[in-house]
């Protein structure tokens, strides 16, 4: 393992769902890398394949879904095709995941300490219950839960949504993972709590040096958090690059549309821009660029599949008619 090896490198990942209505290409030729201490923002609308990408990385795609191609290199080890036991050992230990809805992620009939301790003991049975309990308590304290000793013995329904998400984050961080996949962890929370959680996760990642993939539909979250960003549309990454570069100089019309539809103080009183139309059904994707039908710049060239181009170092783009520099 070389020093510069990224923590996670996803190469041409394809995850398809084989449904009765046809093959649904939820993730189609997706590539990205994240290194230790870095934050990657994965942005897209609902149904663009962000979450499935996250689950594909840890091998938790449920049937009828299946990874049909590509590689998921975690510290150089390909996880596609890795055995279930190997994946189990990585999950929750080296790669942790935080889910979207904190009201649903904790088991309602098990106490918080049970749910925390089992995460430690599943990966290191030698720790022993009392040591595990201590680690669990420290983890709760680290994510800002007051009087963690008492809270350990509580059930999930005795916590508020924000507190539950903190518990989930504490569980994800218990074994000091190298990679954390956070799937819209602040979407279901109040705005004030959102800010706190964002801050906590960022701080904890910096402390432990973990790589972080932050899945979201909210560009404003990404702006302050991520180092690099990948914009997904209909199962593909249409644009990628460093966060400042992409947000300041979007080249794909879809990215530009997303940025344009974020309310801003400078444009008060002006009608909010929106992207016309809606996300196409993944079952009946037209050939060529999937964004074609909603794009003002589309022409006959877009009937063909746009290839991945590298307009400048560190950038990636799938578009025949990139926006030059305009905003």
């Amino acid at each position, binding site marked *: 393992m070389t020093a510069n090896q990224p923590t996670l490198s996803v190469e041409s990942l394809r995850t398809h769902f084989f449904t009765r209505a046809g093959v649904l290409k939820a993730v189609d030729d997706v590539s990205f890398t994240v290194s230790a201490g870095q934050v990657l923002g994965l942005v897209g609308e609902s149904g663009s394949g962000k979450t499935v990408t996250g689950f594909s990385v840890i091998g938790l795609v449920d049937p009828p879904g299946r990874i049909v191609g590509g590689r998921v290199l975690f510290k150089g080890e390909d996880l596609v095709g890795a055995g279930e036991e190997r994946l189990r050992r990585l999950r929750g230990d080296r790669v942790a995941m935080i*889910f979207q809805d904190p009201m649903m992620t904790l*088991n309602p009939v098990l106490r918080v300490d049970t749910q925390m301790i089992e995460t430690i003991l599943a990966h290191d049975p030698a720790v022993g219950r009392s040591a595990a309990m201590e680690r669990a308590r420290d983890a709760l304290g680290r994510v800002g839960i007051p009087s963690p000793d008492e809270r350990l013995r509580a059930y999930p329904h005795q916590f508020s949504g924000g507190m539950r998400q903190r518990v989930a984050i504490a569980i994800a961080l218990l074994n000091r993972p190298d990679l954390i996949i956070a799937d819209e962890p602040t979407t279901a929370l109040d705005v004030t709590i959102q800010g706190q959680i964002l801050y906590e996760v960022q701080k904890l990642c910096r402390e432990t040096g973990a790589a972080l993939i932050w899945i979201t539909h909210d560009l404003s979250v990404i702006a302050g958090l991520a180092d690099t960003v990948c914009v997904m549309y209909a199962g593909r990454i249409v644009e990628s690059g460093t966060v400042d570069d992409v947000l300041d100089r979007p080249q794909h019309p879809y990215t530009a549309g997303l940025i344009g539809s974020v309310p801003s103080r400078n444009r008060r009183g002006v009608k909010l821009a929106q992207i016309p139309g809606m996300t196409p059904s993944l079952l009946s994707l037209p050939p060529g660029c999937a964004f074609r039908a909603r794009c003002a710049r589309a022409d006959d060239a877009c009937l063909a599949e746009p290839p991945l181009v590298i307009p400048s170092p560190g950038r990636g783009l799938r578009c025949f008619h990139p926006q030059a520099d305009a905003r």
Partner: protein
Amino acid sequence: MLVYLIRRLLQSVAVLLVMSVLVFVGVFAIGDPVEILINPQADQAEIARARAALGLDQPLWRQYALFVVNAATGDLGRSFVHNVPAIDLILQRMPATLELAVTATLFGVLLGVPLGLLAGLRPQSRIGKSIMAGSILGFSLPTFWVGLMLIMVFAVQLGWLPSTGRGETRRVLGIDLSILTLDGLRHIVLPALNLALFKLSLVIRLSRAGTREVVLQDYVKFARAKGLAQRRVVWVHVFKNIMIPIVTVLGLELGSTIAFAVVTETIFAWPGMGKLIIDSINLLDRPVVVAYLMVVVFMFILINLAVDLAYSVLDPRVRLSEVKG
């Protein structure tokens, strides 16, 4: 907690009272037991004497009042037919029925929950589909027919197991139990299986439906994302969540099995309460019928209470006490 228990017990007294009135009036409406009990050649004076001896010459409200007063001291009346306290008749037969019902319920749970879990985790597999097909059979085949088939195959053809009676029993705390002796165990297997069949099917369906619902929940996926072994995900995270509905239904089922194991008891000549109640209804032996139903109602109440207590153990969101009425 204590307040809750007391309130529940008071409620049960009310239920018992209503129940006794209904049964009293019901049996009275069916007919006059004296006409069945007495020699057809008896003359009018003899009939009147018999009626007076049984207290049936009194108006119904007085008969009932007398019953309530006596019941308060624990006397539920004497059987018209056997001329012994009705409660003794019932208590004598009760251990056999209880033992059979509990064994059958255990069969149902210990086999049904794992099979249901398996079918729920692999709904599309051959084994999952076979389990469900089997449970449909268990629902639809009539108990008496299955009982006869069990006897035919295991007692008559193969000769492995006896078909009638309780076998050797052992007395524990004044109660005779079959399950403590090898011979008794051999005797209880067939009737318990027969009685368990319906429950087994029910438990399989409940656990399968519960499992299919629970495995889709985020917390199961999160448990897997934590790297837990499949065994722990299923037997802790899924199992604890599916047990809540199963316990409810099983509580009710246990009650009705105790009360109405008649068919199975008849086929396997199991000396339980079922036979007693059928005979008593035929002979209009009111004290036994009333006492029997009182005992059954009381048992239902106890079982329901146990189910409610089990809830609070299984589901931390359930708190007994205060609000509930």
